[in-house]
């Protein structure tokens, strides 16, 4: 067993509050750049995951026997712990850039987006597909004009779940100093348990996840006007 400190640090107390505006003002630039890094990494990871996952879902949708293997493979990737994945990737790609974190994030987001996109595609009613066929749509035309638009709610659900968990997962990149707000959380912990820094970064993480989630939810509403009309 490692020797843990038995009590909170001696300077704990009024001098180390959980939140301080002073800290936020004094370190505004650093906080902002960490937030930007965090948001940028999340956006890149989710975008790449979407570009890979939606075609995979279409493939699984067209060729049913592939559904099992695709879901199983992304399930295995999903089971591998983030720290382990990072430990296996970092020595290969290096720790000077955020590439290893980005790869790990994409791999985790994959399963969620694939599974939900596939669910969105498979719930397209059979009559709709038949009608499209009767109107002379080919395989790709049907996919592009009928099936994908109808699957948008499922895809958006997948993207929302993936975005929220990716924002939380970026912090693990703090292991190699590429964690955005996670660097601040770990930095505060190592810097004599600076509670204000830890709390500010944690709150910003949660806020970022909720804001991105709301943006995607709004985007989903914009893209699927027909669901809104039905509701009102």
């Amino acid at each position, binding site marked *: *067993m*490692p020797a*843990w*400190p*038995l*009590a*909170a640090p001696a300077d*704990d107390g009024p001098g180390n509050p959980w939140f301080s505006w002073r800290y936020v003002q004094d370190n505004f630039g650093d906080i902002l750049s960490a937030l930007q890094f965090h948001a940028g990494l999340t956006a890149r990871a989710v975008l790449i995951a979407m570009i890979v996952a939606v075609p995979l879902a279409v493939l699984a949708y067209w060729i049913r026997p592939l559904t099992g293997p695709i879901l199983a493979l992304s399930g*295995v990737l999903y*089971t*591998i*712990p*983030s*720290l*382990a*994945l*990072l*430990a*296996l990737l*970092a*020595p*290969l790609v290096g*720790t000077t850039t955020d590439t290893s974190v980005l790869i790990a994030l994409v791999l985790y987001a994959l399963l*969620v987006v694939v*599974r*939900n996109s596939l669910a969105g595609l498979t719930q397209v009613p059979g009559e709709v597909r038949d009608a499209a066929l009767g109107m002379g749509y080919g395989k790709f035309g049907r996919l592009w004009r009928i099936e994908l638009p109808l699957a948008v709610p499922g895809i958006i*659900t997948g993207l929302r*779940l993936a975005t*929220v*968990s990716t*924002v*939380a*997962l970026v*912090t*693990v990149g*703090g*292991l*190699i100093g590429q*964690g955005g*707000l*996670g660097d601040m*959380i*770990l930095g*505060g*912990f190592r810097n004599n*348990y600076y*509670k204000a820094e*830890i*709390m500010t*970064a*944690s709150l910003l*993480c*949660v806020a970022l*996840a*909720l804001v991105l*989630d709301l943006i995607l939810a709004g985007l989903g509403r914009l893209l699927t006007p027909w669901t809104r009309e039905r509701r009102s």
Partner: protein
Amino acid sequence: MNYLQEGIVWLNDPLNWTNPDSLLDRLGEHLVITFWAVLLGCAVGWPIGIWLGHRGRGGGAVITVANLTLAIPTLALLTILPLTPLGFGMPPVIVALAVFAIPPLLANAYTGLRQIDPETREAAKGMGLSGNQLLWRVELPLSMPYLAAGLRTAAVQVVATAALAALVNGGGLGEIISAGFGIGMSNGGGGQIVAGGIVVALLALLVEAFLAIVQRLVTPRGLRPARRRRAASAVAAG
């Protein structure tokens, strides 16, 4: 440089297994943390989920809570809790991991009880079963596959995230990885980092496979479907 090979070489050294604070010690810590976190999660998540499912309300709240916890970084709780009266060491790590184990356990317990055919419930009531009897003799056995699926999701997730405890000196197998980064990748730490990654990944996959078998065993034969069901697993992302 072939890091994978270095990792295997590191794993081949018996001293790396038996030395103090080496693999076996860390594996023990990891399993102890996981066990208590999952137990705590079950103790909180199951009664609430079963009660809500039995009463048949609160579904919206369950989903909201589950989605909200997704947004909280594990690392944030792991760093914040040791600074509270919980103190340093294993207790804050166990509590932090239990917090993330609760949503899948709760959501699956709730879904498990709600998916029971209302007619089955009516029939049981018609046979004169009281509320408690209904719960113990009908609802719980019928929701067993869901309870097991929740336990599996939660346990795999806790085993995986327990590795993060190392970032706040909380023990567990993650310590092998972070110690490797401490040595530095160019100073021979690379092998240790990869070895730690391999061990943590294998452990998670083993737990997943083991619990899949357990899930099958505890499911009453009549309920075993041709296809596997894993309820609400989309909610339980880690």
